[in-house]
């Protein structure tokens, strides 16, 4: 196991080096939150991919496919197609109208106090659940791979490192940590995919012949067939309708993935790091190429693990499918090659988690420092240096809380925690962002109702649903593991009903008066935040 530790240590050393370098360049708020808006589009594309391909993608999807076959691959599909929502509707308007956070866009039209507070709550909820999921994943993997490490210490180490990246290096360090991690992750996935295909003479037909021989005991389906994770033939009552449960779970999952991505604060924040809306658009293109290529390769990682290693070889924790596959491809357990491969892939997984958690910490601390502290508590009158200081303190606070919660949630299901994050992002954030940009009647009451209502309903449905308890509850109050199909329409309804209540309460004249301005600004970039020009002393980031 020392190989694993050495490779991990080297990667951590590289990322810390980047952080120290970045720390020297981070003096102003625009540098801390948005890397001076000087990241170019391919760099941002890599960083978006790095931010997005979390432990859930790398370890989680590989594990789901290795244990459930085809149904696990549906996550891969949804997580790529989701970027069309980001590209077509969200990325450019966000870059054109905001400064540092999601709430900047909303506060353009709405009363800053209530909207920023509500957005800070939803951002902290999304980032918090997402972050805890990553840390639980990191803890379990490190603990299982290096038995000398307790779960607690693994989480503490991840926590300390991510706080270090964010507090010292802000967005510049976070971006470069993402880029390093995305490159390593792609390299790892390509290597494993080629080796898996090599076992089948580079013939996909032979590979699928082998997959079709893997049969799920419970359903009798083979691994190329849909229906193992969400079995056919069960029904669910949704209001007056009785529907096929498998279909509803699949569609509901898809809705959360497709609409949730465009509401993830740590992804939206990335669009502020590029100089223009055009660069934001191009960076989504780069990200889609990379993310898509990676998710196609989950075919080889997941099915490869199912065929070559098998459930018995992987053990009970399906998060270990990819590392165990690497060990097998390197030559098997207790060989030099096996150890080396296992070490490399585990280190990549660890780097993946670190990078994602750093991005999340930054999003959460900016929601607190920029939205809540500066704009609500201090009424927008705060010096630059004070704001960066508050953001750094907030990053420490967020990190410490996440570590403490993760330590106590050891048995929680990591994928389920990420599902809560996507449910809140799709039901709370997305409706409000879309209405702010495209609906003239939308107002402050509507925005607050949408954010708070969507967040609350998502959390409630997950808590009373079948997923969060271990083992799952036999007769949950809410039948679906994926609440999106109910919570997303409710999120829109809350926002709409809130808007009409707001009108009845006596119109929000500012929201209406500002609509033409946000419509023009978001689509054209008139008056968009410029790439920072004030720091000539600092060399361009290359």
């Amino acid at each position: 196991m020392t190989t694993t530790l050495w490779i991990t240590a080297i990667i951590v050393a590289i990322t810390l080096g980047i952080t120290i370098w970045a720390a020297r360049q981070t003096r102003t708020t625009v540098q801390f939150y948005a890397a001076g808006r000087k990241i170019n589009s391919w760099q941002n594309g890599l960083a978006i991919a790095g931010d997005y391909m979390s432990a859930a993608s790398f370890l989680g999807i590989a594990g789901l496919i290795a244990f459930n076959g085809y149904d696990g691959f549906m996550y891969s599909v949804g997580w790529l197609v989701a970027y069309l929502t980001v590209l077509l509707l969200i990325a450019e308007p966000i870059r054109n109208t905001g400064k540092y956070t999601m709430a900047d866009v909303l506060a353009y039209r709405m009363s800053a106090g209530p909207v920023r507070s509500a957005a800070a709550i939803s951002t902290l909820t999304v980032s918090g659940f997402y972050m805890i999921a990553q840390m639980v994943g990191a803890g379990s993997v490190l603990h299982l791979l290096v038995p000398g490490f307790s779960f607690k210490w693994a989480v503490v180490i991840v926590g300390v490192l991510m706080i270090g990246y964010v507090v010292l290096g802000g967005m510049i360090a976070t971006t470069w940590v993402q880029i390093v991690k995305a490159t390593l992750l792609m390299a790892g996935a390509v290597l494993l995919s080629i080796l898996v295909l090599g076992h089948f003479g580079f013939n996909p037909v032979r590979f699928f012949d082998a997959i079709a021989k893997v049969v799920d005991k419970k359903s009798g389906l083979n691994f190329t067939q849909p229906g193992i994770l969400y079995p056919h033939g069960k029904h669910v009552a949704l209001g007056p309708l009785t529907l096929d449960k498998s279909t509803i779970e699949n569609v509901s999952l898809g809705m959360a993935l497709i609409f949730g991505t465009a509401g993830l604060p740590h992804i939206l924040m990335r669009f502020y790091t590029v100089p223009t809306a055009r660069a934001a658009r191009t960076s989504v293109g780069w990200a889609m190429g990379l993310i898509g290529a990676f998710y196609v390769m989950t075919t080889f990682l997941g099915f490869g693990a199912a065929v070559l290693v098998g459930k018995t070889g992987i053990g009970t924790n399906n998060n270990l499918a990819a590392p165990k596959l690497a060990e097998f491809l390197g030559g098997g357990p207790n060989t030099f090659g096996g150890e080396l491969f296992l070490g490399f892939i585990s280190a990549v997984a660890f780097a993946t988690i670190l990078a994602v958690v750093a991005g999340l910490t930054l999003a959460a601390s900016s929601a607190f420092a920029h939205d809540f502290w500066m704009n609500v508590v201090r009424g927008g009158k705060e010096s630059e240096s004070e704001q960066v200081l508050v953001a750094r303190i907030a990053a420490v606070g967020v990190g410490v809380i996440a570590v403490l919660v993760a330590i106590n949630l050891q048995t929680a299901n990591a994928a389920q925690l990420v599902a809560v994050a996507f449910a809140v992002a799709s039901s709370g954030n997305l409706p409000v962002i879309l209405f702010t940009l495209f609906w003239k009647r939308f107002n402050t009451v509507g925005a607050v109702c949408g954010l708070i209502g969507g967040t609350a309903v998502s959390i409630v449905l997950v808590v009373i649903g079948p997923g969060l308890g271990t083992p799952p509850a036999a007769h949950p109050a809410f039948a679906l593991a994926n609440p999106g199909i109910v919570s997303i329409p409710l999120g829109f309804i809350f926002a709409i009903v809130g808007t009409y209540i707001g009108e009845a309460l006596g119109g929000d004249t500012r929201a209406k008066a500002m609509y033409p301005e946000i419509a023009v600004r978001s689509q054209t970039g008139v008056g968009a935040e410029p790439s920072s020009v004030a720091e000539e002393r600092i060399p361009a980031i290359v």
Partner: protein
Amino acid sequence: METRNRGQGTGGPPVGTETAQTRASQWEVLAASPEFRRLITAKRNFIIPAVIFFLVYYFALPLGNGLAPSLMNTKIIGNINLAYLFALSEFVMAWILAAVYIRRANRIFDPLAAAVRKLAARMGMGS
């Protein structure tokens, strides 16, 4: 720049004062200008159908898997079935649609947006 940032933070200048009204009406003029209408029409004509298309294409996959499993299990090449090939085609669809949008935005939407920015500059706005 400073004015706007402060406005964003604190709720902006109170609407009803003379400056706020002039400011709002200037944006209304810009929003009603033929330059801006051209941009919005061009974008709308592309983006709305594109969004409907990808949503229909995407949700056809989970619906198909749920409602017509035997059809989706049809073997196409060896043991590679329709369900997998359809899933793979989602990637291709997403890449092509993204490429088409980026091309169109760079060639058509960006020049139209630049015309609006020019107009805004002539009206003394935009900073």
